[in-house]
């Protein structure tokens, strides 16, 4: 990247400030830059340069200090929370937040796992890349169930924006023509294994309406000219994505939106800039800039622009907003409704069913497929809901041949045992549920004004719990998963839930949403349907905070679409001089 792009002090006003550089920050910056707006992307963490800073990429396991595991002492001192993330290990720890510097509180009797990626690119470097569209029923769910508030948009409002971001980001997947999981603009899907095809056939026959498909994932299975022009090439199926990928084979800010934004010469980046608050001009009722604390030396500075886009992740954005107080907004900027910080949701990934698959002894695979199979939510409407709870869940479905990791648990001593360890064992499968979490007013993040972190930001207090609906859903998901595995001919079927475990508390799915929700009514929502603040016309929030319900699908693709849509609207409003 051209060095001139990075700035520190700047008195000149920008057209737009984009706070955050993850999935939504990257998209917002790209969209504004390509429309000719001088844009400043503000990132609280350090610069991570594509390729150059992927320090563990390609490093074989025996070259790590502890064969890819992280040292106890380091975990104890710096990664007590982050260690609970599935992707945390010695090759990825540099992209996780430091828990010592980033403390938070939880209300007694509750738990929350806040996983952070504070660097240029944010969590786009670390994400799991599963990319699905929400369906029409997802947008109608709150209204139908009388829970939370009604989404101010419907599927048709966002469908074209899904297409737009999919084409650019590169999503592999299969067209399935399912009402509960709309198709998109797909690159070819990854291949299914024989056992997966066999399971699919048996389960789909036994349970009409339940489909087992290849996961849709932001990987270039066959890059288009558009992807090659971003400097990205075909996925090599290393499945070591979270170390960073110099092939640019998965979508990240670094691989995709950042080079596109930089190419326009309209982008500047202020890294190491912890946004303290939004600066508000009460006389004009406009956000005019942000106040920043330097990540390293704690000095303060300010950046100014005509428009402010908050894309700092749900919790990051909400913390900034709650901390931006004024006479008019004593409880946080753009918070006349009082709902800011409430209705925090995550997904509930806490039910699992596993089994063995008989046969297919002469089949194996080559390559480490960076995606698994998927069963979309089949309880999308009230008439499809199961007894005892609202809404539904999807399953991530993974099959594999067991190897020495599983076999090392079996009985055996000596040369025969040693021989067995080196060859593939039985096929196994697991169904992992991914459940919706209902919006609940009392699931809240707030600020503790009496305790501050090293940058002087008030500590966040989380008061979030899985409630009866979430628990009943997971109990059912475990049971239903087992039922399907048995119907699929599996043996040794086991199932269970994990929502009671502290390390599986809300937050651990890293799909936080809902704390600055959209809505039609300014009295009960923070944002309008374009992610624009009801209260302050030039303030936008396009990350997960804008959600009204968690839905079931992984949210990042929707974040991208909402962001691109918001920028398009905002740019038109700017040109019409209405902001």
């Amino acid at each position, binding site marked *: 990247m051209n060095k001139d792009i990075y700035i520190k002090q700047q008195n000149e006003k920008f057209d737009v400030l984009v706070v955050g550089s993850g999935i939504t920050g990257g998209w917002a910056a790209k969209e504004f830059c390509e429309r000719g707006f001088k844009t400043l992307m503000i990132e609280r963490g350090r610069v991570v340069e594509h390729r150059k800073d992927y320090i563990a990429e390609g490093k074989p396991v025996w070259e790590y200090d502890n064969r890819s595991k992280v040292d*106890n002492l380091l975990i104890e001192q710096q990664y007590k929370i982050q260690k609970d993330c599935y992707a945390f290990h010695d090759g990825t720890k540099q992209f996780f937040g430091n828990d010592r510097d980033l403390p938070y509180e939880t209300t007694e009797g509750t738990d929350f796992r806040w996983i952070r990626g504070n660097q240029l690119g944010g969590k786009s470097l670390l994400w799991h890349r599963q990319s699905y569209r929400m369906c029409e029923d997802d947008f109608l769910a709150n209204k139908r169930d009388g829970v939370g508030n009604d989404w101010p948009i419907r599927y048709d409002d966002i469908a074209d924006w899904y297409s737009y971001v999919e084409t650019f980001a590169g999503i592999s997947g299969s067209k399935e023509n399912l009402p509960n999981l709309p198709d998109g603009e797909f690159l070819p899907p990854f291949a299914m294994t024989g056992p997966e095809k066999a399971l699919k056939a048996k389960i789909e026959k036994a349970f009409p309406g339940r489909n087992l498909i290849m996961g849709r994932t932001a990987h270039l299975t066959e890059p288009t000219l558009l992807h090659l022009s971003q400097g990205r*090439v075909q996925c090599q199926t290393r499945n070591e994505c979270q170390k960073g990928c110099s092939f640019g084979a998965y979508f990240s800010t670094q691989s995709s939106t950042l080079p596109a934004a930089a190419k326009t010469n309209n982008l500047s980046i202020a890294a190491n800039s912890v946004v303290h608050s939004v600066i508000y001009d009460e006389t004009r009722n406009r956000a005019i800039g942000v106040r920043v604390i330097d990540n390293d030396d704690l000095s303060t500075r300010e950046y100014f622009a005509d428009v402010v886009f908050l894309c700092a992740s749900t919790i990051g954005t909400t913390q900034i907003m709650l901390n931006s107080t004024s006479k008019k907004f004593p409880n946080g900027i753009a918070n006349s409704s009082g709902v800011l910080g409430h209705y925090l949701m995550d997904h509930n990934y806490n039910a699992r069913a596993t089994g063995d698959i008989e046969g297919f002894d002469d089949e194996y695979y080559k390559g480490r497929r960076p995606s698994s199979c998927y069963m979309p939510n089949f309880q999308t409407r009230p008439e499809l809901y199961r007894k005892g709870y609202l809404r539904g869940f999807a399953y991530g479905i993974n099959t594999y041949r067991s190897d*020495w990791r599983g076999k090392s648990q079996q009985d055996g001593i000596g040369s025969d045992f040693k021989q067995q360890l080196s060859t593939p064992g039985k096929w196994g499968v697991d169904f992992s549920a991914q459940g919706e979490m209902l919006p609940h007013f009392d699931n809240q993040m707030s600020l503790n004004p009496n305790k501050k972190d090293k940058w002087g930001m008030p500590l966040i207090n989380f008061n979030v719990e899985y409630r009866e609906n979430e628990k009943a859903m997971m109990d059912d998901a475990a049971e239903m998963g087992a039922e399907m595995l048995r119907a699929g001919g599996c043996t040794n079927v086991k199932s269970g839930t994990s929502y009671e475990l502290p390390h599986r508390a809300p937050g651990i799915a890293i799909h936080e949403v809902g704390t600055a929700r959209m809505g039609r009514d300014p009295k009960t929502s923070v944002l309008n349907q374009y992610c624009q603040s009801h209260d302050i016309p030039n303030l936008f929030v396009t990350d997960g905070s804008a959600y009204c319900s968690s839905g079931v699908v992984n949210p990042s693709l929707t974040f991208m679409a909402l962001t691109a849509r918001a920028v398009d609207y905002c740019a038109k409003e700017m040109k019409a001089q209405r902001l």
Partner: protein
Amino acid sequence: MKPTKLSQPQRRKFMQHLVRTMGVTSATALVYGSNLNVALGFQIRAEKLDAAGLLFDKTTMQTLKHIVNTILPRTDTPSGADLDCHGFVDHQLFHCHSKSEQQVCLQIITQINDYSLAHLNQSFPQLNNQQQVELLQSIEAMKGFTQLQRNQFKFLKSLIVFGYFTSEQGAKEILRYDPVPGGFSVIPLQEGDKSWGSLAYY
């Protein structure tokens, strides 16, 4: 559905794209590996000593070395001790495991030796191979040992196996190693074919 494995012409095209985007040296290093071998953290010790380790004293280390070689004896591939799995277990427990897990391993190793002395009048390292095998089998069969001891032994055993297959020789030569697979596809498996030693997560 189309498999994503690359054919030779596709592979050439992929390399051309990559070279164009990042230059020849970086592209080839990324795909074919670099020759840099950085010395870090746990290194297999040339002598595969049974001297005291970070956690274990000399007697424990000697017993562990014999346990390792009983579970994973030398065949047409190296033994566990040839790859210094006993040194690995000591190092890994010290750096990456809790005090209670360290204690579990220390306890079971000591108990194996104690059992050997009490019932066979010799320390575990002094037993012949057949006796060593039978003693460890009796732990798994819970003959003279409890369920708790069986669990403790299984934990130790899984660490030994982890050390074996995450070593360079274990992953690269004893298993099949393919750091940059170039695509995902289904392949046939023949009798005796090895598992992949190149894994994404451990």
